[in-house]
């Protein structure tokens, strides 16, 4: 039987004039430069926006609900699907929150590997940002160049964990694998080339007239606005606040490495662009230092905490008690202590926080994912009015929102 489709078409890209000459434009949710499923209802006077309503939720999968029904380790692959451009940073944020809840200390080699993964993810994310934003603005060449470098990084990550996009490369209590033998060499090859590559992008964009016109003095976020809207990461640093969680509340080995936090007080698209470029250089700087640390570490990869973390494969296969514990941890899951934590980390997009409320059971009682992009989308409400239609694309581009983490 053929059913009549009841979905009446929306007024797609509505153009109905009102008495006051205001026009309402429906931007998205399927728009090539809305970076996912963002729908914007724009009230226009001619081409100028007077009111903007971002509408999100098209990618809502209920991760917080899922987390309440999963044991802690089971949830790890789900975190990949938040900011899927840099999934290890989500894995890490979750692992760190659970480790703080338990009070686990991670072996040094695992820390080094995590640092490498985090910075690789930052590079991947920033390169992806550069590529897509430049493409939105019309610079095809940069897209191709940046994706070439990102491809190399994805291959590196694939060498490490076998996955390219959804890594799940971090475990609660450490990392699952040691670096493959060729990894550091390949990484060094890449890093040695990176400054020249970044210079290439900048040569293409920095003084490009079109780029400047689209970026300079467009989408200015004032310091008060950025703070009030809960902006973090490059969004906040471009608006005159020198705040990087890696520097101010260091986790992992960030207090042992030397790096600078680029910031600007301009607050416009161009400032954000420059910050992304500079952060790539800083990431490379961190990676060089972390690579040097790797040699001095012993081979331990997972913390020794039988109540929470499975023993090594060797122990599980040879020792009865380790096998029993592993069985319980896999079938029933670990039971962290009763209490709550909120642990922020600096993901490529901003402050990624995990709030976990544990009641001593194998399932979190409440898990709140604090994703930076959520507020970076919200700020569009206040940021877009006054701008023109073409600026919308440029502004969405530089806010660097990813809908996996807006909608969760």
């Amino acid at each position, binding site marked *: 039987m053929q*059913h009549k*489709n009841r979905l009446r078409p929306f007024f797609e890209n509505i153009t109905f004039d009102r008495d006051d000459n205001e026009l309402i434009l429906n931007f998205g949710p399927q728009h090539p430069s809305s970076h996912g499923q963002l729908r914007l209802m724009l009230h226009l006077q001619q081409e100028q926006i007077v009111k903007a309503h971002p509408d999100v939720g098209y990618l809502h999968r209920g991760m917080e*609900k899922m987390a309440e029904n999963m044991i802690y380790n089971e949830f790890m692959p789900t975190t990949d699907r938040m900011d899927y451009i840099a999934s290890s940073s989500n894995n890490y944020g979750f692992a760190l929150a659970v480790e703080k809840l338990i009070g686990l200390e991670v072996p040094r080699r695992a820390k080094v590997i995590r640092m490498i993964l985090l910075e690789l993810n930052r590079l991947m994310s920033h390169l992806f940002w550069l590529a897509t934003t430049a493409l939105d603005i019309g610079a095809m060449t940069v897209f191709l160049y940046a994706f070439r470098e990102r491809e190399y990084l994805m291959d590196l990550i694939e060498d490490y964990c076998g996955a390219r996009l959804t890594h799940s490369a971090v475990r609660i209590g450490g990392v699952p694998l040691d670096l493959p033998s060729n990894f550091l060499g390949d990484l060094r090859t890449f890093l040695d080339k990176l400054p020249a590559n970044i210079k290439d992008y900048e040569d293409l964009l920095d003084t490009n007239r079109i780029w400047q016109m689209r970026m300079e003095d467009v989408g200015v976020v004032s310091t008060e606005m950025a703070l009030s809207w*809960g902006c973090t990461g490059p969004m906040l640093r471009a608006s005159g606040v020198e705040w990087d969680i890696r520097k101010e509340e260091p986790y992992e080995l960030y207090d042992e490495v030397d790096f600078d936090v680029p910031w600007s007080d301009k607050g416009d698209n161009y400032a954000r662009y420059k910050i992304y470029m500079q952060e790539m250089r800083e990431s490379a700087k961190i990676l060089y230092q972390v690579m040097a640390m790797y040699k001095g570490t012993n081979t331990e990869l997972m913390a020794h905490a039988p109540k929470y973390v499975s023993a090594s494969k060797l122990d599980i296969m040879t020792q009865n008690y380790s096998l029993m514990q592993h069985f319980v941890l896999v079938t029933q899951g670990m039971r962290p*202590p009763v209490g709550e934590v909120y*642990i922020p980390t600096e993901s490529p997009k901003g402050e990624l926080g995990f709030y976990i409320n544990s009641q001593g059971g194998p399932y979190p*009682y409440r898990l709140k994912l604090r994703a930076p992009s959520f507020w970076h989308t919200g700020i569009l409400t*206040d940021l877009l009015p006054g701008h023109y239609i073409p600026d919308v694309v440029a502004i969405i581009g530089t806010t660097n929102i990813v809908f996996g983490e807006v909608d969760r």
Partner: protein
Amino acid sequence: MRAYTPKDDVQKKAYYTDRYWVAPMVPKSAVSDDEIFTADLEAIKAKFEVSDAYIQVEQMVVFINPDDLYGVLELLKNECEYTQLTELSAIDWLAEKGQFELFYQMLSMNKRKRIRVKFFIEENQAVESVEKLFRSADWSEREMYDMFGIKINNHPFMKRILMPDDWEGFPLRKTYPLQGDEFAAWYEVDKIFGKEARDVIGPEIRDSAAIDRYDTQRFSHLGHEVPYGADISEGEPEESPRMQEEEGVFMIEKFNEEDSVVISDRNR
């Protein structure tokens, strides 16, 4: 008789817990251990009632009265330099206490400190919006309403944010099943085909692990392959459809195994 399962918390529970097992606690320390937190707490206590305060995992937790929310956050913002409202949300304790626990996570960049302001509200009690202090609360409060049904007073644009506007039920409540309730199962059917098509179409299967072996449109039956959409309710056909591998790959029709050569030298 079937065992009674309480309907006030349908989330997954541990199926076995050792009878002697006592859950350890995440250590708490007194606020007086930290000078900055002590000063902040004094500032709050001077004007508002604080029922409990402690430090857990390097962050101060302060319990206040729900009515004081706006005042406390205003004080923290203007006098204690807590310039950012990082996050706010609720925890559902309806099954245990009939209450929601709300937490407001604040950050002071100058002091490099984070505190969590918490309080309990009754199920139908509304809270004051702090959107005028922190614009970030605009979306957070909408999300909190969307997920828990907590009403916010004086919010400029109170509407669901993640779920559809005409959704019924509040997904993050403990009474709400993981796969959605009955409303969720009929939502898309009603929306797309209309209520009268319910009998024909049936409810949406929202269990992602559900497998219907007679549904030949979605799953291949490994080893018992049948054509797409075939009706196998009367039993499967004796012979399964032929595989292309059995007759050779269609692109390489003239391939003859005897004539072929195996190259051993890769660099030849």
